[in-house]
């Protein structure tokens, strides 16, 4: 996909949209936030003194499905941006809704997983695994929730005819956020689930 054309008033002194550059700086700070949380999780892997332990709880099948849903929503986000740029209100709306739905399904899987783990005896206070796991994946889930709200607001704007090619940068910035949430989950799925599965 080629780089998008932006309105002249959106461009800053660097010849790059100010809002987009500001958002990249925000995403950079988010990298540090998740780096700290992942670092804390990795520091305490296998150091819980009491159960339940990851091996007792993880269901790699369910998590793989939720991961698949989230990764596919990244693709629908690309389609949403494409059709908003083209000025197709109907298809732009369809793919924005599909992306939000993908996020909601992922959150449903996460809620199910959290509930299942809680009933199996894992809580924030139970052991090091519980503390680091819930904080790490909970923060990510909060980010997905924020993304779903953002997408929903764009969907409503689109339905009211307030989102056209001239507003494509709004959708692109939301897309940057959504793709970031997607790649954070790729890393979390690897370090939390796959490495446990590999043992």
């Amino acid at each position, binding site marked *: 996909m080629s*780089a998008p054309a932006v309105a002249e008033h959106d461009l800053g002194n660097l010849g790059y949209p100010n809002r987009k*550059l500001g958002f990249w700086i925000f*995403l950079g700070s988010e990298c*540090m936030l998740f780096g700290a949380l992942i*670092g*804390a999780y*990795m520091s305490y892997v296998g150091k819980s003194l009491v159960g339940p332990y990851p091996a007792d709880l993880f269901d790699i099948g369910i998590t793989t499905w939720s991961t698949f849903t989230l990764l596919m929503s*990244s693709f629908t986000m690309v389609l949403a941006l494409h059709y908003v740029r083209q000025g197709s209100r109907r298809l732009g709306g369809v793919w924005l809704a599909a992306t939000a739905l993908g996020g909601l399904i992922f959150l449903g899987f996460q809620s199910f997983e959290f509930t299942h783990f809680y009933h199996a005896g894992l809580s924030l206070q139970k052991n090091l695994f519980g503390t680091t796991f819930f904080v790490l994946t909970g923060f990510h889930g909060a980010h997905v929730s924020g993304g779903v709200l953002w997408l929903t607001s764009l969907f409503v704007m689109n339905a009211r005819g307030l989102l056209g090619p001239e507003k494509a940068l709004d959708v*692109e910035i939301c897309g940057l956020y959504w*793709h970031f949430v997607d790649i954070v989950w790729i890393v979390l799925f690897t370090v939390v689930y796959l490495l446990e599965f590999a043992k």
Partner: protein
Amino acid sequence: MIEIGLILPGSKAWYGAKVQWLIPMIVPILLSLTVVKFMAVVGFFMHLRHDRGGPRLVFFAPLVLAFLMILALMLLYRTLL
């Protein structure tokens, strides 16, 4: 795939051997796909391939810093390394 081997009795042993061969490969394959997906999303979906200079720096510098921080913590706490 194990279930397929049970449904098709004649090929059970063949599938069993195939699964045994695959099990140690699953994680490296998934890890490789993870790296490919990560690069595809950052480079193409997020358009960083087209954005030179500033945006690349403000994203990749903290990303590398975060990675080094995770590595340092893992070394400090002697986990997985």
